[in-house]
């Protein structure tokens, strides 16, 4: 496996491209962003204001915009910009997937008070959620599909129902992998939602499962509005990160000082950051562990790569974080197994079927991969049957990997 020479991202990271100099597209795009001058940002700000005006001119609603919020630091930053800086009246919309950490609950419920905003919190029943957790874990190795789907669907449904054309999102979608550049002015799209957030699955893929009985009525909140409905209201989703410099460390500090936002009190096991993903106890835990199981990297790699680019740490320090956190099997896995009633044995049997042959190889009954620090190591026993292991090796062979995935 090839790794970026500047950050710690592996070639396998979503949509990533590593160029001939060994630098990944994420770092490439970041470099472009970093070189941007204050004048540039002043122009972006102007463009943002023009766009808001243009989109809002057909607004027949009493609300100025929809802000999809989890209650996290980014939600606070987005709302701060729209309320405190621009003086708009937003409708805050939260998809509640029943995974909040206590600090996350506190931050979410505090929002409407500190921003004097109306806040709509929506969630499906816990039975539906448990079914989706199990079903999507088996189907795509991701128990959190319901959350990606709810977050990316319900606020747009609300925008359509309430006739609110302007939706304000946070970070530029997928700038993590360098899909877009600043000048692309990318907006929220059903394509990116379907392909990347929902992994190419929609509600109808969740019906007719033998084990998990779900009906269409259970999944009304997963249905994305039609183009026709969206055009009628003129709904457009802007990423505020496209117009104002995005610095999570800075934002986190600001929202703590200004609005009493709380970071995590206990450190996470799979990353060193304390201010990310408090709305979802699994996002840094079991869900992210699956990313490591599939692709051999996790949140610590994500966070370290960003922090290396932002100048908060050196690559060496980043590698240490990865070495310490990336592979950790966190305790919330047990929490999740109890939640959905699954044994750990079954978890590993299913999870192992999602190991990517571009990353992992089977050696002496263990899973082995190349590390960012240059050696290979084993990361636990193989739970596949003999037949499945054979199948895995065959797939690996068929990939025709030149020099081991590089």
């Amino acid at each position, binding site marked *: 496996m090839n790794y970026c020479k500047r950050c710690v991202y592996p070639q396998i990271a979503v949509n990533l491209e590593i160029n001939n100099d060994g630098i990944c597209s994420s770092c490439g795009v970041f470099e472009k962003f970093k070189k941007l001058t204050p004048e540039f940002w002043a122009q972006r700000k102007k463009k943002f204001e023009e766009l808001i005006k243009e989109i809002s001119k057909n607004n027949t609603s009493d609300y100025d915009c929809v802000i999809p919020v989890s209650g996290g630091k980014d939600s606070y930053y987005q709302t701060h910009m729209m309320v405190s800086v621009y003086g708009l009246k937003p409708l805050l919309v939260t998809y509640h997937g029943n995974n909040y950490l206590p600090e996350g609950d506190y931050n979410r419920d505090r929002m409407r008070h500190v921003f004097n905003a109306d806040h709509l919190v929506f969630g499906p029943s816990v039975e539906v959620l448990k079914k989706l957790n199990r079903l999507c874990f088996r189907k795509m190795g991701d128990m959190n599909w319901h959350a990606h789907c709810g977050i990316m669907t319900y606020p747009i449904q609300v925008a359509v129902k309430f006739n609110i054309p302007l939706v304000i999102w946070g970070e530029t979608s997928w700038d993590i992998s360098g899909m877009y550049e600043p000048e692309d002015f990318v*907006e929220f799209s059903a394509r990116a939602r379907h392909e990347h957030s929902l992994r190419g699955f929609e509600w109808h893929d969740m019906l007719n499962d033998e084990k998990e009985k779900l009906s269409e009525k259970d999944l009304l909140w997963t249905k994305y509005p039609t183009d026709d409905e969206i055009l009628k209201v003129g709904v457009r989703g802007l990423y505020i990160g496209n117009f104002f410099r995005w610095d999570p460390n800075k934002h986190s500090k600001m929202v703590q000082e200004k609005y009493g936002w709380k970071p995590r009190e206990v450190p996470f096991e799979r990353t060193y950051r304390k201010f990310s993903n408090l709305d979802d106890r699994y996002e840094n835990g079991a869900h992210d562990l699956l990313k490591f199981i599939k692709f051999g990297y996790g949140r610590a790699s994500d966070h370290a790569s960003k922090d290396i680019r932002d100048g908060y740490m050196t690559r060496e320090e980043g590698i240490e974080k990865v070495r310490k956190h990336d592979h950790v099997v966190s305790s919330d896995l047990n929490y999740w197994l109890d939640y959905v009633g699954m044994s750990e044995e079954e978890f590993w049997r299913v999870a192992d079927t999602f190991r990517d042959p571009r990353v992992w190889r089977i050696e002496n009954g263990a899973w082995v991969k190349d590390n960012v620090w240059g050696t290979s190591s084993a990361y636990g026993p193989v739970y596949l049957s003999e037949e499945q292991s054979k199948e895995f090796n065959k797939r690996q062979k068929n990939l025709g990997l030149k020099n081991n995935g590089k």
Partner: protein
Amino acid sequence: MKKRRLIPVLLLKNGWLVQSKGFQFYQNLGNPVTSAKRLSEWASDELIYLDISRDEVYDLRRDDLGHENRRSFLEIIQDVSKVTFMPMTVGGRIRTLADIERRLSLGADKISINTAALLNQNFITEAAREFGSQSVVVSVDFKKIGDKFVVMSEGGTKETDYSPLEWAKIAQSAGAGEILLNSIDRDGARTGYEIDVIAEVSENVKIPVIACGGAGEWAHFAEILEKTKADAVAAANIFQYTDQSVYQAKKYLYERGYNVRPPDLLTV
């Protein structure tokens, strides 16, 4: 009077849909099918689908998704033709009549050839004879070298002795049904089209010319319709940034009185 067409272009590189900038900087956008489906839903007049891979490796590097990770261009084209409802031109890496036949049989309505035609003009003639002129598009990539525009081959890497107009005329006499005229310098630059070259070529050939390279806003499309005789205006990256992009672009042109089809949505 015949409507002028607005044509989105999709670029495929090693199994990924990509943005291209200057024929050398590529960014992975996503899987090869979803975008095509969206462009179809927005009632695009046509679609141009180009394979710009430099080798035979097609891999999305993901096997846990709701869509198939196809390992060959032909499989991808087959998938695309299943979800699209507009005429599709398929190009890239075409060298033989058999290559053309395979693409047409998988759902392409036209094919586009570039390097193979420059290597052997007879290939245009043979293709037109075998499959009909209407299905043969000759794609012309050009670049400014010194103070002259020069046609380039092999994905913009090799100079030829032709100017865009010379080569377009030759392609026309050899039996090409359409010319896809693409500026390498303006690829992904957002600065508008290479108007002079497009105007010159479209005025001096009888077959339809499709203008490509440089669209950064809807107004650039209008400029082509205004200042050149190009039959169609094509663009790639710009249609990937916003939802209902093709609809919005058409709406822009239609509302300003240009001779294009009214904006529409396709409900299948």
